């Protein structure tokens, strides 16, 4: 059931879902849910969303309206029930030591829950403009927007130029593929080995059966975003191929 619904930014929604205790226990940072967005049969597949955070009896997702499924979802009212599968997939390895969180646009949707579970030293958020920039309370954050409407003006990679990479023993990275690739390329090699990326792919089932959610693997072949990921070691991915498939 949708316990709360809020349009936190224009076209970006926060939904709070009441869930069972068993569900909560497994709602670890980085895992996701598959939401049936329409009561009718179309669109046919569910839509995947990162679990943004959890409280004592609910989880939250934060999503942007980008197409038909998210539009339908955004039109669903508070109090209505939706079918939801999950928590699915593998989340972040919650290693000890200080973390750097790097998020582009809605890529930061999963950071509230992650930040609450780890020792977060710094969070770096980028977005096209102020209206696409998530704000996450209680965590030291530096923001950058492409149009300069909030924080610095520029790309996440510009902000990162001044980062002391070796002061962080863990890095979480989530955002558009091109952005993630650029970030990884500018990192020192040692930082890459401690970077976990939260990957996205168009999903069929979301629970490992259909081989629909492939991401090119560093060792050849493909990884399944839904069950090998969505959180993957940065070095497990073949970034050139992955960027290629997104035209």
């Amino acid at each position: 059931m949708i316990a709360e619904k809020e349009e936190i930014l224009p076209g970006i929604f926060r939904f709070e879902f009441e869930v069972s205790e068993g569900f909560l226990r497994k709602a670890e940072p980085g895992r996701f849910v598959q939401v049936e967005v329409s009561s009718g049969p179309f669109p046919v597949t569910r839509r995947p969303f990162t679990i943004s955070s959890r409280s004592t009896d609910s989880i939250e997702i934060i999503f942007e309206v980008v197409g038909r499924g998210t539009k339908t979802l955004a039109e669903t009212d508070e109090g209505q029930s939706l079918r939801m599968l999950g928590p699915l997939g593998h989340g972040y390895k919650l290693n000890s030591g200080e973390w750097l969180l790097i998020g582009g646009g809605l890529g930061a949707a999963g950071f509230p829950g992650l930040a609450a579970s780890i020792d977060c030293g710094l969070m770096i958020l980028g977005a096209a403009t102020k209206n696409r920039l998530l704000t996450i309370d209680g965590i030291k954050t530096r923001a950058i927007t492409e149009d300069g409407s909030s924080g610095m003006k520029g790309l996440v990679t510009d902000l990162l130029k001044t980062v002391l990479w070796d002061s962080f023993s863990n890095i979480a990275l989530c955002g558009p593929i091109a952005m993630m690739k650029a970030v990884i390329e500018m990192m020192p090699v040692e930082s890459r080995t401690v970077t976990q990326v939260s990957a996205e792919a168009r999903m069929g089932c979301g629970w490992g059966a259909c081989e629909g959610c492939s991401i090119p693997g560093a060792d050849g072949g493909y990884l399944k975003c839904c069950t090998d990921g969505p959180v993957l070691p940065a070095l497990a991915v073949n970034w050139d191929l992955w960027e290629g498939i997104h035209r």
Partner: protein
Amino acid sequence: MRYYWELWGRRFDSPIILASGTAGFGLELMEQNNLHGAAAVVSKATTLKPTPGNPPPRIVETKFGLLNSIGLANPGVDEIVKTILPEADSLPIPLIVNVAGETVEEFPAVIEKLERSPVPFGYEVNVSCPNVAAGGMVFGASPSTVEEIARLVNSVTSRPFSVKLTPNEGSITEAAQAAETGGADSVTVCNTFLGMKMNWRTGRAPLKRKVGGYSSPALLPLTVARVYKTCEAVDIPVLASGGVSCPEDVLELLAAGAVMVQVGTWLMRRPDAAGELREGVVRLLESDSQ
């Protein structure tokens, strides 16, 4: 009152079979406790060599359906026999292994290897994959090739097998008759329809191979017609596949002559589809018999 459905001499309390490519080898569903209601599960395609599958994106939605271009992704029969089938031994329901090949000879070669495992209940011989260049639906379009493949498969196994036909080329009834002549124990009607999406702004198709396999609840009437016509053409049982999203769909395909009914795309959306469908079918049959 109890209801039964029969396939290959075995009785089941459900007419629902999980379709190839949408249920893995049933292991994820077993873990989720979602196999109840299913009579059997058909595995994803098994090929002679490991097959990485097609480049992503592999799933593209259209307004009223789904295009897939998986391309028979699987670790190859050796790995499957070594690691997956032993695990699948703990499935509470029979496993039917779906088999594909790039050449006619690869079909019996794969099955010979599968014969070493005690796990498979039977096979589904996939001569109809729309997502590969070699083999695939090209085989299914030619009755003589279908007959030859069925004959070769028949010569290497005593397990029952179904030949999964294509709706895209040739004549499905002639292909079914060829499968019957070749010794198939049943036919599956049918694989996905060739479909495509185009981005008119860019002039590009989202799928790298342009065309893919299209499935949708809206295709049910196409399956009903093909099942009906195939049942008229052959004496072996027909397994229906295509378009099922509610219990009425299952009953419609059974009324058209199918002995059992597969569910694929809908299972991806509803991992508990088999239970839902079976219960719905039984409820409808009970209310009807009153």
